């Protein structure tokens, strides 16, 4: 079987599964899987860029996805009245002072010769800078968070169109990735993994606790949408006529219509990123990246600046994850920092890339859809399986009760098994790298 046929068949199977869901469960569920599958595919492309192209072991995907979500609030939400004058500028100055301290300390360190004096000066500068920063920062935060805390208590955003938030999400993630890459990319693969794991946790901790930024765990709800609201559609007479013409009831039709709109938008983004990733892969730049991945020493001997190239691709891949994160938050219509979990937002994406085929963009997209489909469908399927297994037990048996209740946790188990099976029997993934 030729490669094209094989790939088409694989995609065909995944979409057949999703369409089957449409017939068996509901088209709403099927469209939801497609939408999240599109977003997952974009995240997988980002990770594939880092891991597949360059061999960078980034397990901080969750952090960049969350930053994308944060960008949605900062870009599209309405500004909070009086927040800037109350303490906003103060916070900005404090943040600048904090950044200035770090930059200043680094510069002073470069000027001084190594020794105890330098260490003492570094310590003194950092401590002084920290207290200065907190001194300016804390009153500002208190002032901003005091504004209507039940509903606001934050800056709000710039009130720009929500579609603009997607590239903004990418930019924000890219900026943070640059900072991280500058410090952590020199590390060995294992260390980089632990470092990125930590950074993701820190980003989530910041988003949970800095209420002035995006209300922390109090969540921001009711974010703008790039598509019409269901309720408006249900009140529009032309829409009702169309729906009746198709023989679908209006409520279902409106919800399908909204999801379809999202699907079109997301597909457009996926296509753009996919084409770009594909072009990058086949360009001299892509070949250089793979050369670095396969043999860093040789690439360095050929005059390639390995750390700079790593930084470049780390920033690019993280930006893509940021864009996907922004799209996801837009789809949800809310930012809930409490729901970001590494298993779901970091390691699941990794499963997608490995299962799909690392180093192959098409593979990453396939993995995104397939694994997302499994992630959603394992739960009902697990429940069904458990009911089947325990059908011999009596209704009030505790084992039956426990098994059925625990069916929801089947998904983690399944993901692990899928990952291990693919690694063992098809280590290069479903669509291997050429």
């Amino acid at each position: 079987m030729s490669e094209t046929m094989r790939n088409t068949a694989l995609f065909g199977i995944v979409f057949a599964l999703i369409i089957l869901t449409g017939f068996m469960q509901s088209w709403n569920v099927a469209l939801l899987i497609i939408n999240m599958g599109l977003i997952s595919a974009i995240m997988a492309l980002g990770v594939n860029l880092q891991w597949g192209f360059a061999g960078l072991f980034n397990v901080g995907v969750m952090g960049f996805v969350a930053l994308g979500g944060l960008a949605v609030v900062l870009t599209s939400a309405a500004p909070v009245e009086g927040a800037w004058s109350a303490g906003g500028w103060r916070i900005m100055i404090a943040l600048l002072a904090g950044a200035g301290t770090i930059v200043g300390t680094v510069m002073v360190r470069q000027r001084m010769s190594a020794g105890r004096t330098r260490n003492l000066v570094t310590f003194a500068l950092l401590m002084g800078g920290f207290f200065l920063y907190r001194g300016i920062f804390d009153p500002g935060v208190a002032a901003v968070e005091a504004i209507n805390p039940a509903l606001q208590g934050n800056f709000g955003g710039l009130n720009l169109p929500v579609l603009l938030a997607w590239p903004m999400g990418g930019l924000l993630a890219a900026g943070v990735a640059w900072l991280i890459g500058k410090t952590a990319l020199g590390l060995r693969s294992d260390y980089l993994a632990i470092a990125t794991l930590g950074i993701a946790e820190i980003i989530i901790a910041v988003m949970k606790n800095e209420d002035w930024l995006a209300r922390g765990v109090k969540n921001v709800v009711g974010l703008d949408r790039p598509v019409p609201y269901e309720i408006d559609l249900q009140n529009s007479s032309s829409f009702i006529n169309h729906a009746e013409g198709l023989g679908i009831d209006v409520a279902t039709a409106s919800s399908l219509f909204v999801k379809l709109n999202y699907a079109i938008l997301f597909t457009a983004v996926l296509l753009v990123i996919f084409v770009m990733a594909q072009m990058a892969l086949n360009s001299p730049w892509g070949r250089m990246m793979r050369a670095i991945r396969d043999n860093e020493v040789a690439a360095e001997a050929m005059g390639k600046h390995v750390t700079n190239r790593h930084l470049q691709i780390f920033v690019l891949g993280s930006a893509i994850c940021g864009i996907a994160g922004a799209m996801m938050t837009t789809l949800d219509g809310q930012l809930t920092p409490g729901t970001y979990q590494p298993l779901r937002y970091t390691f699941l994406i990794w499963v997608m890339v490995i299962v799909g085929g690392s180093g192959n963009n098409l593979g990453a997209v396939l993995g995104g859809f397939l694994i997302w489909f499994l992630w959603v469908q394992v739960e009902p399927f697990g429940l069904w399986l458990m009911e089947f297994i325990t059908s011999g037990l009596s209704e009030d048996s505790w084992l039956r009760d426990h098994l059925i209740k625990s069916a929801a946790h089947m998904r983690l188990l399944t993901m692990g098994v899928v990952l291990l099976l693919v690694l063992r029997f098809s280590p290069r993934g479903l669509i291997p790298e050429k």
Partner: protein
Amino acid sequence: MDFLNAIVALSNFVLIPAIAYGSQLALGALGVTLIYGILRFSNFAHGDTMAFGAMIAVGVTYLLQYWGVSFGPLPTALLALPFAILGTMALVLITDRVVYRFYRTQKAKPVILVIVSMGVMFIMNGLVRFIIGPNDRKFADGERFIISVREFKQMTGLREGLAIKTTQGITVVVAVIAVVLLFWFLNRTRTGKSMRAYSDNEDLALLSGINPERVVMYTWLIVAALATTAGVLYGLDKTFKPFVYFQLLLPIFASAIVGGLGSPIGAIAGGFVIAFSEVTITYAWKKVLKYMLPEQLEPSGLVQLLSTDYKFAVSFVILIVVLLFKPTGLFKGKSV
């Protein structure tokens, strides 16, 4: 008197919790470091191995309690610990046979093994949630305190009280016993010596007739025992919740790396470095400073450098600083 009060407050809120937490981290980090030294990869499933061990201990504790067995003033979980260790040993040996061994014979790159351990992490995490559910479980019983605040105040007449929880005492005692046993094993027994030889230089060890599969098996057995002990002690001291163990992965790795991956002494030192930094930086120092400073200088705020939610940031910053300035860790570790 004020000075004594300050010391007591410091011990109560910083020293004692940090020593207990440090012991737990050290036991966890020892497991990570052993795997790294012998099997040469960072085991992402370690947190979930701890959770699995603790889960068995919780189950057996409940069973013992149901049968009416108790351990007097000590928590029943200590009686359950051997069973939990045996259960975890079985689990990791099966995992090694079914999963890791294949890659070992292939001489796969360490990073592939890390990804494999991610898969194992998913499975173990799923198993634990499947069996016991994702919720909090308290399984500590027996006496709550070795010394309670009230007793201490009556005894000494100081204004500040000092409390030592039984679980904190047990944590330290058990950790010391575990570490002594481990070092005795590594330094005095034939198998322990072959493990160290294998860790130092694999080829040389193989040439001298050491059976690698045996070394690997003993490593897993020890790691299972350490992980379970760490998991049970952490669960007793705080509470058992599967997700928390997953999050412990970060400070544990930080401890192992700060100490120097592959170095057992380093893992212990690293555990305490991380624990003490986390606790001191997230502690509100007002109470201690109140006694130490003259009245005019008394701080108005809490003097808390960072809120407790940022404790990850602390372990992370220490990790980065150590890696940037001393890439092999405080005690010379190895790098694969």
